[in-house]
């Protein structure tokens, strides 16, 4: 294939847009893994649930996928609270989170995937909205498809709102505090378990939004969630575990590298990029780009 500057620039722009979406996918894990130290490898399963919820609402009522993602937020919040409740009682309090807690989340990931297969089958599902098939925005030779642009903007808005919430409100600051020193928080007469419950529920709630963004970008099938595990954790670690600006930066970087790889070598190679990224990060700079 001829590699022109035109193609390369467009691949970079597409990668930046994709990266914005990856940031939304990762932000939940940045909270749960980065701040709370809960290794929620089942996060992609919740994203898939979010995508299928958006599909259902879109299919049945013609609801816009983004609106569907917002409508489902409270339900995902409660789901997250329930999962943390079980996790805390069964593992965290017994001090067994490392082996059995991981197995628990792996079981959740797996059961969700199988349940989705049983209910919806392995067919690809997609949503309909007027802007998804609209002709792309053009700036000279750069093309911006709405299908990618809108998820990116929504993702960045979500992360911005979360950042404001964490730095301005009492609960948000308490979440930041629990990630730094739970004992000190307890001495301030705040209950770290309750704070972690809210934070974890919040992290699962973001999966509702990112799921609805996912199904806008591409058709989904149940096993797709697994492809995101490598990406999510690569971004989370590279972004410096729990730093939102770091997460966005790392996500954009991964998006661009993936997009250029897909342009040069073909899209079937792009899942390998995230892994290479992850291994490289772990081996060379485990503290992340903007490491503490």
């Amino acid at each position, binding site marked *: 294939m001829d590699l022109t500057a035109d193609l390369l620039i467009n691949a970079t722009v597409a990668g930046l847009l994709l990266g914005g979406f990856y940031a939304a996918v990762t932000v939940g894990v940045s909270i749960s893994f980065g701040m709370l130290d809960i*290794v929620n*490898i089942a996060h992609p399963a919740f994203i898939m649930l979010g995508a299928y919820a958006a599909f259902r609402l879109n299919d049945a009522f013609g609801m816009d996928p983004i609106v569907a993602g917002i409508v489902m937020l409270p339900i995902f919040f409660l789901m997250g609270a329930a999962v943390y409740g*079980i996790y805390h009682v*069964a*593992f965290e309090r*017994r001090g*067994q989170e*490392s*082996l*059995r807690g*991981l*197995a*628990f989340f*792996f*079981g*959740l990931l*797996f*059961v969700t*995937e*199988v*349940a989705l*297969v*049983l209910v919806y089958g392995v067919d690809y599902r997609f949503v309909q909205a007027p802007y998804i098939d609209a002709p792309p925005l053009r700036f000279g030779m750069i093309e911006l498809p709405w299908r990618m642009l809108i998820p990116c903007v929504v993702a960045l808005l979500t992360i911005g709102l979360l950042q404001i919430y964490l730095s301005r409100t009492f609960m948000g600051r308490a979440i930041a505090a629990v990630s730094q020193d739970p004992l000190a928080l307890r001495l301030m007469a705040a209950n770290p378990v309750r704070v972690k419950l809210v934070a974890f529920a919040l992290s699962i709630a973001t999966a509702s939004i990112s799921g609805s963004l996912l199904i806008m970008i591409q058709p989904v099938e149940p*096993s797709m969630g*697994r*492809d995101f*595990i*490598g990406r999510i*954790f*690569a971004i989370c*670690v590279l972004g410096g575990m729990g730093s939102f600006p770091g997460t966005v930066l790392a996500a954009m970087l991964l998006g661009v590298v993936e997009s250029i790889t897909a342009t040069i070598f073909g899209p*079937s*190679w792009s*899942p*390998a990029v*995230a*892994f*290479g990224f*992850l*291994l490289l990060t*772990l*081996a060379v700079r*485990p503290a992340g780009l903007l490491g503490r």
Partner: protein
Amino acid sequence: MNNRLFLVLALAIAVAVFVICRWFAIDYLFFAGYQILLYVVLATAWNILGGYTGYVNFGTAAFFAMGAYSSVALIKFFSGVALPIPLLMVAGGLVSGFVGLGMGYLTLRLRGVFFSIATLALAVVVQTLITNWDYVGGSRGAYTVRPMVAPIVGSYMQYLFLLMLSLAVAAIATARAIEHSELGYGFATIRDDEAAAEASGVPTLRLKLIATTLTGMFMGMAGAPYPYYVTYLDPASGFNLAFAVNSIAMPLIGGTTTWAGPLIGALLLGSVQQIATVSTVLGTHPEVNLLIVGLLLIAFVVAAPNGIVGFFQARLRQSRAA
């Protein structure tokens, strides 16, 4: 009981199992039995790292498939020459063991969860590589023709069964030998408190690397005969998530601290799945099988954290105290 006696006893049991299966003379019994034995090997191999040192490996499917695909590559490369399967098993074990060592070397100096996450990603990436590797069939898959006659015992399915039975004995004997050796005590210190172990002079990194290599090696050896077992291998079946889930669920349900746990878990869950596959009541949809395994896994880690073996050990202790 010392190790040699245990090995003799295990071999005797294995011979008895084989003779009984021959006596029934149903080829399907060997076919189903192979699958269960495969899970015994995978669960035991997983437990050497996961149960003894406490490091969770999600990449069973990747290590297994690397063994299977190294066989496919070798069979294709030496087409015309009939390679004995034990040789393929050694090759598969070497490949997967080496990858296990590399993974461990890159990630085990960090916190344990990074190793787990890296193994999760490894499965996706090895699958990507194999899917793009046309030499071993790529996404279309590869056919492997079974030779007309087996070197020993007549039917080829019985030969494969015998090989997997021997591997299961080897894996269990190794796991048991580790348990009561200096190595095993070193593993246990890592599981209980790695920082304290390190401070007391336990060479934790070296021990962890031994464990990952052993785990990967046995998984690769278990994968090597697989192309002959299924005769058609494509990435979707070689990297089936069922391998990863079962190899984690079986030790956790059986109990992770002894060699008996994974064995009990594998025999139990493996048989249940085989029965569910043939019976029309549960076997209407193959995914239902896996749903049951997943739900059992969650139920056991939440409600019975020490598995079946742990449950009985606790009962025994209570009755002794009373």
